[in-house]
């Protein structure tokens, strides 16, 4: 029993953090906002060089062969940097899905993803929208019968749905499902879609941690400098306490995300419940962080030119993606109230007596 990330994992996280600090700035994020796709193939390629898109790609397909524990650490960094690239869609969700599908799809797409040469987007019944569909080379989409299809973008009808976050590009997608597009059906498709949902939600939770941490940091920095009534506003208890409350939320969301990553990586029986707990807590921390950071900034935070809203919008986006709070709360509630889940002291970890 050791509930810590190991040194290699933390080293990897630091490497990615340093890269993103240099390469992804508020200015560069804003520049991408103004582009049609909101995405940078060059940046995607750079991310591939440090191993991000291919993190979960098995080594035989030229990837890093790592797991969800590493993934959450890196996506937390992506959140901290307000990175807009399709890391969640492609690296966190599509890659393991393709790997599980195996065969020609895996052989063709996994090496391309690892090389930063392809983007793959994944649809799921939990949402009417598909994130990053507009730049995806391949789309993995459910049909109305629960089967899973693989279609290239030119074979799909992608309608952009502008959202509140210029970094979040979502679309509705229509396509002609056929035998030839079908990649899985029946129980296999259900299993794959369930896993995709848990991976997407887990990644959003991890991203929300990074966003929340950054929001607290921005607010604390501003409040330490900005003066009113002759004192830094951060010396007022009202400001201190609102930020402290968010910090509490953040630090108690963190171990939930960590455990959920472990459960997804090990396909634990309560994986779905663990993921939902993590996403609820992390998104609650991030969205309350957005509100509090804005209040600590005052009017200046309400402007487009202040960078604060880059992270506020990311917080709201993670809250929306891969199942909103009522969905995840509902999953945990059902598990609790049907008695499906053992609860009480000594039930938190597997192998308890």
């Amino acid at each position: 029993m050791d509930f810590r990330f190991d040194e290699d994992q933390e080293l990897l996280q630091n490497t990615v953090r340093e890269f993103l600090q240099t390469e992804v700035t508020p200015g560069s994020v804003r520049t991408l906002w103004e582009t049609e796709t909101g995405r940078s193939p060059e940046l995607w390629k750079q991310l591939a060089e440090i191993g991000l898109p291919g993190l979960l790609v098995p080594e035989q397909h030229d990837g890093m062969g790592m797991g969800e524990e590493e993934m959450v650490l890196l996506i937390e960094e992506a959140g901290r940097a307000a990175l807009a690239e399709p890391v969640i869609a492609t690296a966190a969700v599509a890659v393991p899905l393709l790997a599980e599908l195996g065969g020609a799809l895996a052989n063709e797409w996994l090496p391309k993803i690892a090389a930063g040469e392809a983007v793959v987007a994944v649809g799921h019944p939990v949402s009417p929208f598909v994130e990053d569909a507009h730049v995806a080379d391949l789309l993995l989409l459910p049909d109305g019968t629960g089967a899973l299809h693989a279609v290239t973008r030119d074979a799909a009808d992608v309608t952009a749905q502008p959202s509140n976050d210029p970094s979040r590009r979502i679309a509705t997608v229509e396509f002609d499902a056929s035998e030839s597009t079908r990649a899985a059906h029946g129980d296999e498709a259900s299993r794959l879609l369930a896993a995709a949902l848990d991976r997407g939600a887990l990644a959003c939770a991890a991203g929300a941690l990074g966003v929340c941490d950054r929001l607290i940091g921005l607010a604390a920095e501003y409040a330490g400098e900005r003066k009113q009534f002759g004192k830094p506003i951060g010396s007022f208890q009202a400001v201190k306490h609102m930020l402290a409350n968010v910090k509490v939320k953040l630090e108690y969301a963190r171990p939930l995300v960590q455990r959920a990553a472990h459960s997804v990586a090990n396909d634990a029986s309560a994986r779905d419940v663990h993921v939902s707990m993590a996403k609820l807590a992390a998104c609650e921390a991030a969205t309350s962080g957005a509100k509090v950071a804005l209040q600590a900034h005052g009017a200046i935070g309400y402007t487009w030119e202040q960078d604060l809203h880059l992270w506020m919008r990311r917080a709201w986006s993670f809250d929306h993606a891969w199942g909103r709070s009522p969905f995840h709360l509902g999953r945990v509630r059902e598990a609790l109230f049907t008695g499906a889940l053992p609860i009480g002291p000594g039930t938190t970890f597997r192998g308890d007596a």
Partner: protein
Amino acid sequence: MDLDYSKDQQTFRADAREWLQQNVPATALESFDTAEGAKQHREWEARLNAGGWAMVPWPVEYGGRGANLLEWLIFEEEYYRAGAPKRINQNGIFLLGPTIMEYGTPEQKARFLPKMASSEEVWAQGWSEPNAGSDMANIQATAFRDGDHFVLNGQKTWASRGAFADWLFGMFRTDPESERHRGLTFILVPLDLPGITVRPIEQLDGLAGFAEVFFDDVRVPVEHQLGEQGKGWSVAMATAGFERGLMLRSPARFQATAKRLVELARLHVDSIEPSVRDEVTRCWIAAEAYTLDTHRTVSRLLADGKIGAEASLNKIFWSELDLRMHELALEILGDRGELRPEAPAAGDVGSWLDGYLFALSGPIYAGTNEIQRNIIAERILGLPR
């Protein structure tokens, strides 16, 4: 990350479970804040001690089991799982005991630890004074040195277990010129000395969980000084430190409450508002988060990490969770939520109402949550004082 228990840990758990199954009293004891309850709890502690389970994390040489923090968590899980009694001597076991191990002389260790282990001597803590509550450094009780004795004067308040304890520990100002946290000495005081008056304080639940203790020229031998003279603040900080605080509020306590809450909600699922079901769910998630976070912290401590201001996060989290769970339980109980347990119509209200009244003190004691928020903001987030 390794979330499986080792073979040894599993064996430890099985042993604890077996002993507790065979020994935990079948009917609940009375509250240890009553005379009769205090007697019952002392008996239970003696039994625990005889079984070797009283001082699980203490070194074997002091009557403990030499368990590490993780094993302690396992023991606590089993203890709460078995519905075993609350620990009357928690001030001694979790706060003072480890401090004596660190700061005590060999004579002090031999004198105090075995009787603490058996709860033959029950300890009250004397942190607070009327003007030193959240502002703990504002201590005014004095101890002046007179030969081989200290002569104590002043008043301590909110001494938990004070009404039925044998000893009290606390800080006294030995340097009359000193201010704030300088010039304080940590002293152990038998409560039966001449000049001591103990006045129980009745709480909202009607029980005497605390006491005021008055000192009027009380003579205490200097060998009852713990640590150096004038260095009491360091000793007190070690006592109040996180690792020990953790032991007082182990995750199992809140998991046990969360479980009872979920079971209550399941039982009344048809009569409660859907929003209450949601809130119960959130509480259970929070209890799990608390458990996981504790394991994260313990993993770090076992790997030789240190704990700092994070303890303030912890304090806020558990105290708010505990209060919320009790509020929800009363909400679920509906019309019966206001009944005393002895009311004929009380049914399954159990101890929720008294638990609620107790939980109300959570955001107040051990440093109000307002103070904790200041600490988080200043020491963790770096905001200006």
